[in-house]
């Protein structure tokens, strides 16, 4: 039962991100809800499940993207592992730490994905506008997504 609920949550997160980018972009900008979901799952879930969530959400992002396949999967898997390491030393449940984590990890993920793109496909996928603005939108989205995931975890036992 839990795996089905997790699958539904996974698809819902990806679909919600797709719907938001299709209808609610502001000057071409939108919070990256797939990133937010991967980060929140990494905070709430155990290490193996967290890395798996990162990998599969990354695959979803790769399916939507136009460049290399597997880039986001690798990025979010490593991000989930990094969160697992960090959360042993810091309280990641607090609002402020989530903001800081969302901001810093957004930039780190973008830089890492940029590096992967240059190595594997020699293209530059991230625009400056997105690089400068999206982390702040992610920082706003992560606490909200965290509360939703936390509520689902308490109610249904997923993650």
């Amino acid at each position, binding site marked *: 039962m839990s795996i089905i609920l997790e699958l539904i949550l996974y698809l819902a997160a990806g679909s919600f991100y797709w719907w938001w*980018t299709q209808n609610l972009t502001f000057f071409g900008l939108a919070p990256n809800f797939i990133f937010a979901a991967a980060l929140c799952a990494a905070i709430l879930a155990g*290490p*193996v499940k967290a890395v798996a969530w990162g990998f599969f959400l990354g695959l979803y992002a790769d*399916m939507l993207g136009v460049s290399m396949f*597997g880039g986001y999967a*690798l990025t979010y898997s490593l991000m*989930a592992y990094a969160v697992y390491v960090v959360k042993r030393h810091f309280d990641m449940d607090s609002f402020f730490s989530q903001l800081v984590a969302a901001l810093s990890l957004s930039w780190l993920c973008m830089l890492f994905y940029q590096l*992967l793109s240059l190595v594997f496909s020699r293209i530059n996928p991230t625009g400056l506008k997105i690089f400068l603005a999206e982390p702040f939108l992610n920082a706003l989205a992560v606490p909200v997504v965290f509360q939703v995931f936390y509520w689902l975890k308490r109610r249904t036992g997923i993650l």
Partner: protein
Amino acid sequence: MSREKDAANYAVAFFAVLSVLLLLFPVSKIANTARIAVSYSLYPSLHYGARYGYFVRNVPANFLALLETDQQNRALTEKVKDLEVKLLNVSALVAENDRLTQEMRLSRSIPWAGTWARIVNKTPADWYGSFFIGKGSDDGIAVNDTVLGMQDERAGLAGRVFEVYPKFSKVMLITNSAASAVCAIGPAGLEALVEGKGTWLLKVNYVPEESALKEGEEIVTAPGGLLFPAGVPVGKVTKVFPRESFMNFITADVAPAVDVNTLKEVFVVRRNLSPEIQAAAGAER
């Protein structure tokens, strides 16, 4: 704790290796096609850029043709929209061309010297009173010049120039309630005064009771008027009113020879009236 750490290490290593393998080895044709189908359906705009060539590698030709057909379809839809707008403009231009051709043909048959001018402004508050034309004193337009309109391949009286500025002029229409013209009715040439009513109709006044004024009779400007050259069609009688007991003449409604609602260009007849006649005309409405 150590066990959890080991599990985390194994998990990240496993998924990292899997990701790198996905990055290193191109996915199969079917997988790549499915991926393109998904991403193209959800984000078609992503494929319009320079990355298109890179993106569609390792894709079956028939699927590629499908994508290209869709892109061509989108481009052609945009083109069709542009062409529809252009077509609308073209039909307006054709109609204008037909009208101008007709007017040029007519202008050869007009016995008076003058110039064509476009109507540049109609005032909603004074629709049947006046409008502005795009020529003024720089083009030789003078106050009291006669303004003709063209309708049904015939010239008709539209009004007279009332105010002149260097680049434009104001025309007082014959339908203006302050405008009037001495006119001749029918073949007999009975003279009467045609006055504007501020509506689409004119009124002919001072027609002797015993005259045989009939509906449909044509009214033209009379030689007796100073303001307008003789023989310009003014309109047709549409309704004759019986004599009122306190009046010794009859009146009638007249439909103007030109409909001001359809006028786009007018022909301004140069009158070259002497100053004395101009002054006398000033006394005449």
